[in-house]
């Protein structure tokens, strides 16, 4: 155990003893040294005096050469214990008389006359030289040597006394300090005991007892104060801890509750989403499935109607018209449902193209002409001068306008509609504003709230009175919202309504836009009458009903129609016949429409023949990518098909005749022209243009 780690009791004793012993030793040593030094001085003086006396006494003997007398004088030194040698020398250095205490032949004893006078210490001997004179005349020299026995004896005695004294005082110092150190170490030990008790038992109620009002006393006070503080805090902490535990438990319960609820919610959400997806899928599937038979119903009823008209069976014509009308209504309903489900499933795609606004409106008006005239309404179209072309998905814009306008027709009796288009600039973008105004029954403020909801007409009675699915405005709203366009309505019950749609004049493919195909919607209406011989059109479709419908329809348009049921046959025939146009189905056994299209476009001889896809598969992006000129989805909108075919015939004619400019009759704002146009379009007898390409 090192000195630092000794207990405070031992340290105190040790310090006291060391201090006292040190002081005692130092004082004793200094006293001893002083005493011995002065005693030596005394001895020296003593010996010198003795030398003087002996010298004086032996002077006469020296003078008279009386050696016995001199020896007798020296012998007197026998009394003096510590003189070991005394010698008288004659002036010539010869020994005259001598005295030795013990042995005459001491080797150290070789004095000579050359030595200095006075005294000196030689080893442990003190030597004195003294001249013997008589009346100032030098008679000889006296030499005395002392072994300083007195001095060494005294030194030894003193040292032993000191030693014993130090031992005794050390003993007493030990006794006293052992008793007295308790004054300091006692309270500290007590404090330590208390501390140990506290830390061992964690019992903060123990207190140290204060003995004295010194520093240790204040230390004990401080310790006690700290203990009380700790005790208080301990209690408070314990309380807080308990509370915390309770709270934690509560929180844990709460959390587990919430987790449970969250899991339930997630499950419910998954179920709901799954249900929603299932619904959408179901609707889409059903729509497709429904459309295939409808295709046949409408197509055949149209053909029968025409045949009936030819045979003037008027009743049959009316019945067939009812069948056709019901089928078309059903088709519109299915298309709307399909649109809605596509929007909900996020599958709506965009196809941007630049087109003439006037042409697009003309198409809509033409399509809606029967509806407009039905309730004795009049239509006015106004285009601002600055409105020319716009770049957007023409289908969507057309559908929106169609929906708004057909709504207006539906709810207006003996009134007026107007379509106003103008252009404005907002935030650096050109916007086209389409306004459709009617003088119909109007909408109440309350009805407005549900105006854009699916299957929500302003009033349930309306459905009975006016018919309709109630999906038109909902689709419009959804779509406008999706494209970040704007739609608004101003209306008063009984005071007519005004719907306003803002569409950017130059839309960009910010959102999911499939491959953009440069559509060229040059005006073509006026050219529809141009006939140039009978060209051949190849129809590739595995559906026999489609093949028959197509050949009848296209035959009416003065075409030779070849139909084949498979892709391979189609390719082979195309090489032989070189048709001016090919219509192509996608879903076919063996070689499907995509591969047929690819092969057609890969063949340098056939690649220039335009191909119009006519299919149930809704993937126009792929079709355009592979080189299709147009993309129509079944059931085929015959009017649209006719328009497209006309377009290709004109292009071909232009390239054949070498004329670049084909006279195009622009749609004018002249009502007379419009009437002509309306008649022209009516020839196709296509009433419902629902934007299916």
């Amino acid at each position, binding site marked *: 155990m090192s000195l630092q780690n000794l207990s405070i009791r031992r340290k105190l004793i040790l310090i006291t003893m060391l201090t006292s012993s040190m002081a005692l030793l130092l004082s004793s040593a200094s006293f001893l040294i002083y005493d011995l030094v002065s005693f030596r001085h005394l001895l020296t003086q003593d010996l010198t005096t003795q030398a003087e006396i002996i010298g004086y*006494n032996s002077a*006469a003997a020296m003078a*008279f*050469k*009386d050696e016995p007398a001199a020896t007798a004088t020296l012998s007197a030194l026998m009394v003096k214990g510590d003189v070991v040698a005394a010698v008288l020398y*004659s*002036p010539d250095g010869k020994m005259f008389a001598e005295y030795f205490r013990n042995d005459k032949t001491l080797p150290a004893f070789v004095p000579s006359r050359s030595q200095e006078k006075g005294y000196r210490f030689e080893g442990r001997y003190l030597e004195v030289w003294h001249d013997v004179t*008589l009346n100032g005349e*030098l008679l000889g020299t006296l030499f005395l040597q002392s072994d300083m026995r007195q001095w060494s004896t005294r030194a030894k005695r003193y040292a032993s006394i000191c030693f014993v004294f130090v031992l005794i005082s050390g003993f007493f110092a030990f006794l006293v300090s052992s008793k007295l150190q308790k004054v300091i170490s006692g309270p500290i030990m007590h404090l330590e005991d208390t501390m140990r008790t506290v830390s061992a038992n964690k019992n903060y109620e123990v207190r140290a007892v204060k003995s004295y009002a010194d520093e240790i006393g204040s230390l004990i006070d401080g310790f006690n104060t700290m203990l009380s503080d700790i005790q208080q805090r301990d209690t408070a902490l314990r309380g807080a801890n308990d509370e915390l535990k309770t709270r934690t438990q509560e929180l844990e319960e709460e959390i587990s509750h919430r987790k449970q609820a969250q899991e339930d919610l997630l499950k419910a959400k998954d179920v709901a989403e799954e249900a929603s997806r299932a619904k959408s899928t179901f609707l889409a599937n059903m729509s497709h499935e429904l459309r295939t038979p409808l295709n046949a119903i409408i197509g055949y009823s149209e053909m029968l109607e025409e045949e009936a008209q030819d045979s003037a069976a008027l009743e049959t014509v009316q019945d067939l018209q009812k069948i056709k009308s019901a089928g078309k209504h059903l088709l519109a309903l299915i298309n709307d449902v399909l649109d809605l489900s596509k929007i909900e499933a996020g599958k709506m795609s965009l196809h941007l193209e630049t087109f003439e606004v006037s042409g697009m409106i003309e198409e809509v008006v033409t399509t809606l002409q029967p509806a407009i005239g039905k309730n004795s309404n009049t239509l006015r179209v106004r285009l601002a001068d600055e409105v020319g072309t716009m770049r957007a998905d023409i289908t969507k814009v057309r559908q929106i306008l169609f929906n708004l306008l057909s709504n207006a027709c539906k709810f207006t009796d003996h009134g007026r509609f107007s379509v106003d288009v103008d252009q404005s600039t907002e935030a650096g973008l050109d916007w086209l504003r389409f306004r459709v105004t009617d003088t119909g029954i109007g909408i109440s403020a309350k009805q407005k709230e549900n105006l854009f909801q699916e299957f929500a007409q302003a009033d349930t009675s309306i459905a009975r009175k006016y018919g309709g699915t109630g999906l038109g405005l909902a689709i419009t709203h959804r779509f406008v919202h999706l494209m970040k366009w704007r739609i608004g309505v101003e209306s008063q019950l009984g005071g007519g309504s005004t719907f306003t749609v803002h569409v950017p004049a130059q839309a960009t493919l910010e959102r999911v836009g499939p491959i953009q195909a440069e559509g060229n919607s040059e005006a073509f209406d006026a050219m529809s009458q141009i006939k140039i011989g009978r060209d051949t059109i190849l129809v590739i479709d595995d559906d026999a009903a489609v093949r028959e419908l197509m050949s009848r329809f296209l035959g009416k348009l003065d075409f030779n129609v070849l139909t084949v049921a498979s892709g391979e046959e189609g390719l082979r025939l195309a090489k032989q016949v070189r048709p001016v146009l090919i219509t192509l189905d996608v879903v076919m056994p063996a070689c499907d429409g995509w591969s047929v299209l690819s092969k057609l476009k890969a063949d340098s001889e056939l690649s220039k023949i335009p191909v119009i896809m006519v299919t149930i598969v809704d993937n126009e992006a792929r079709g355009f990518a592979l080189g299709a000129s147009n993309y129509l989805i079944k059931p085929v909108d015959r009017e649209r098909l006719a328009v497209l075919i006309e377009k290709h015939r004109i292009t071909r004619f232009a390239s054949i005749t070498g004329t670049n400019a084909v006279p195009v009759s622009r749609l004018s704002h002249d009502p007379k022209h419009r009437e002509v146009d309306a008649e022209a379009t009516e020839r196709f007898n296509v009433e419902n243009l629902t934007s299916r390409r």
Partner: protein
Amino acid sequence: MRLLRLITLAIMILPSSGFEAHGQDSSISAEYLIKAGFIYNFANLVQWPTNAFAQLDSPIVIGILGEDPFGTVLDRVLAGKRVNGRAFLVKRLKSAVDLKECHILFVSSSEIAHLAEAIHFVKGMPILTIGEIPGFAKRGGIINLVLEDNKVHFEVNVEAAKEADLTISSRLLALARIVQDPGADGKKAQ
């Protein structure tokens, strides 16, 4: 200084180197050389009354009564020596009158017949009488030189010295053989 003293010492000690004489002449010469030294030592250890000298530096006059046994030895030994600032003056006495001037009177053995007369004559005077005659001290002389075993010793008559008003150092007395005047006892008794 020291060298000078050493030389002096050598000169002084030289005669004392041979206590024992080899030949007759040299023996006599050696004996007197020692005796001359003794006389010098006596002068050192005897104190005369102050009135014995005319002045502080007056010389100590040594008178030789009778036949001079020293020859030139005494003169040579004392030459240049001083005791308490006083030099020595050696006189060969012709008449008794000259005795009064002396401080030390050496009575030669030739004067054995006139011994009592001489002692009587100087009695009461501060004169140190030195003789070499057996019984000289007993007969009233102060110091008598005795030759024993070829060694010179001396006898001192303390009473005679007291009468002569001379103080003899105890150190001298320690070395001397003290003798008494037989008649003196009787006088005291009277």
